[in-house]
């Protein structure tokens, strides 16, 4: 070790007075960091409060408003199922239901493949009265895509939907009817 290479005595940057001053400033800057972290941590709450105050974003009230615009009314729902080719035994678990428009409903259909071979089918809905179909809002339905059934398979399949509250007043009963068609090999997806 060469003594000539040692640091000079006057390392001004590290004089105690300056060190203290630097440390104080660093602490102030650290306080800004902490303030910034606090600021971002209250954002979710502030955002919600701001949006509610201005009415920009309020899911709860938006739903209330939507619901109160046209209140739901009692209605009778009928469910029907047909199998076009006879290969599938197809029926609804519930046939009649009393409900309110605007309510989300969940019904189950039961399908049985009566054959010893794989059957690919597609359910096609129809409505009674026909124009009520415009007010049936399906969120999920087995009729959205082709279904493949193993030989002798039994399966329960759901439909989730609601009836638009704008359903014309003269309609008090809506029938939801599905017909299963076997899909020919060349149209299978």
């Amino acid at each position: 070790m060469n003594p000539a290479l040692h640091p000079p005595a006057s390392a001004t940057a590290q004089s105690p007075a300056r060190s203290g001053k630097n440390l104080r400033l660093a602490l102030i800057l650290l306080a800004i960091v902490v303030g910034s972290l606090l600021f971002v941590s209250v954002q979710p709450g502030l955002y919600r409060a701001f949006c509610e105050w201005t009415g920009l974003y309020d899911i709860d009230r938006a739903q209330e408003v939507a619901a109160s615009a046209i209140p739901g009314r009692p209605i009778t729902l009928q469910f029907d199922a047909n199998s076009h080719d006879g290969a599938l035994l197809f029926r609804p678990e519930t046939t009649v239901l009393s409900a309110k428009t605007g309510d989300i409903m969940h019904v189950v259909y039961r399908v049985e493949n009566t054959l010893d071979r794989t059957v690919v089918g597609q359910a096609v809905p129809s409505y009674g009265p026909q124009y009520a179909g415009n007010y049936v809002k399906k969120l999920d339905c087995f009729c959205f895509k082709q279904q493949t059934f193993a030989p002798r398979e039994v399966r329960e399949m759901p439909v989730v939907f609601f009836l638009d509250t704008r359903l014309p007043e003269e309609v008090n009963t809506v029938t939801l009817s599905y017909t299963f068609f076997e899909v020919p090999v060349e149209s299978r997806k």
Partner: protein
Amino acid sequence: MQATSHTGYAGHHDHDSHGHPTGWKRWVTTTNHKDIGSMYLWFSFVMFLVGGAMSLIIRAELFTPGLQYVSPEFYNQMLTLHALIMVFGAIMPAFVGFANWMIPMMIGASDMAFARMNNWSFWLLPPAAILLTASIFVPGGAAGTGWTLYPPLSIQMGMGMDMAIFAVHILGMSSIMGSINIVTTILNMRTPGMTLMKMPLFCWTWLVTAFLLIASMPILAGAVTMLLTDRHFGTSFFSAAGGGDPVLFQHIFWFFGHPEVYIIALPAFGVVSHVIPAFSRKPLFGYVSMVYAIAAIGLISFFVWAHHMYVTGIPLTGQLYFMYATMLIAVPTGVKVFNWVTTMWRGSLTFETPMLFALGFLVLFTIGGLTGLVLAMTAVDIQLQDTYYVVAHFHYVMVAGALFSAYAGLYFWLPKWTGHMYNETLGKWHFWLSMIFFNIAFFPQHFLGLAGMPRRIPDYAQQFADFNVISGIGAFGFGFSQLLVLVIVVQTVRGGARAASRPWDGAHGLEWTVPSPAPYHTFEDPPHFDQAEAHG
């Protein structure tokens, strides 16, 4: 890059019992601002090549319509990592490297205020870079959300997203530590006589930038932490299914994200404010207005964030406010451009490589600023949101703005760092290849955007094919031209004409009063501050 013959000891904390570590230990343990500055610069160059390679994968895929080389998922990962690496791994560390090297020398300080913390700030970067790049290889791949990390996609992605989040945390810590260091150094360690209004502009830009970082990096850290808890701990800050709002993330992200744009741009302004006066052989025009413009840009940058969110359904009043506020930023920026041009007015100009890059910056940054004004207009932005017009815009300000300015600074200060002059012919080749290929790569993207080509999609309709070919040629040309930098820097480090202590006759400032290469330790005692070296 540093001549080791001058090195006597590792730093101020090493006393008589220690010698100066050599080999790799020197770099791991160093507290010397010049060593750390060099490491920042080399790190950023490596990340620049990595991020650049990713952009070439993107351009290769886009060379013709259809899917050729990569899957859409991988394409999304590439564009995300390209952006994160270029912003946090290349451009920001490059300017921190300049800050480390130059700020103590510009203000006559012996080192940064917190030398040990300076070492930590740097050594946090490699782990973050490894997390980011290694995330490509984990199941599900890297984050594929774009650098904005928008939920709901960022809530649904695989563990690559978590790695990106942790990388952002680490990078944020590094930036905050670096910024505290820079502010303290600038405010407390200037040589006697150097008042704030005589301080070099690079220091001013970094002072404001460091404050922006200190205030905005915790915001980003908070946003990604909320993402993390939404992903793993059942919270619903941004998850609509649990009553959260993805738009909240966009607000928080851009409240960080817009200052971030100026965190990148301001130091670039600072470098150019040194290079243009030096090669015009005139003092900078309107120093005071420059300082106020920097401060104004820094301040306003916190109040314009939602101009990235015009299509999220913010109300008309909000759209109008953010439109006008965004246009307001163009005023101080315009002041700066005006001052740079006026500095050159009737100067005795020469066109060495640093000046060429500064002029390239000036022209192309102005184009990028102008398209920024176009995008600020709500009605126009709704049409152009997420098209290639936006991609063209921000590459004009990020590449031609920040990168060109970094090159200007590199060639400007390389003689001071290495003691050698770089190869001027190669430097000019580097500039002209970059300038031409950059424009070939990015100018057609304006047309693509106006014609409606969406960004972040690996395939496109036939009618966009021709401009994408042109853009691809430009991108590959630009990418490979950048390898010249490596050649030039390595050549300059190894040898070349001896550089005088003031290799540019028009350059002013304390950094030019020390020999070239700058000794390992400079300004152990505060230097006399000669008015001839004063800025402003």
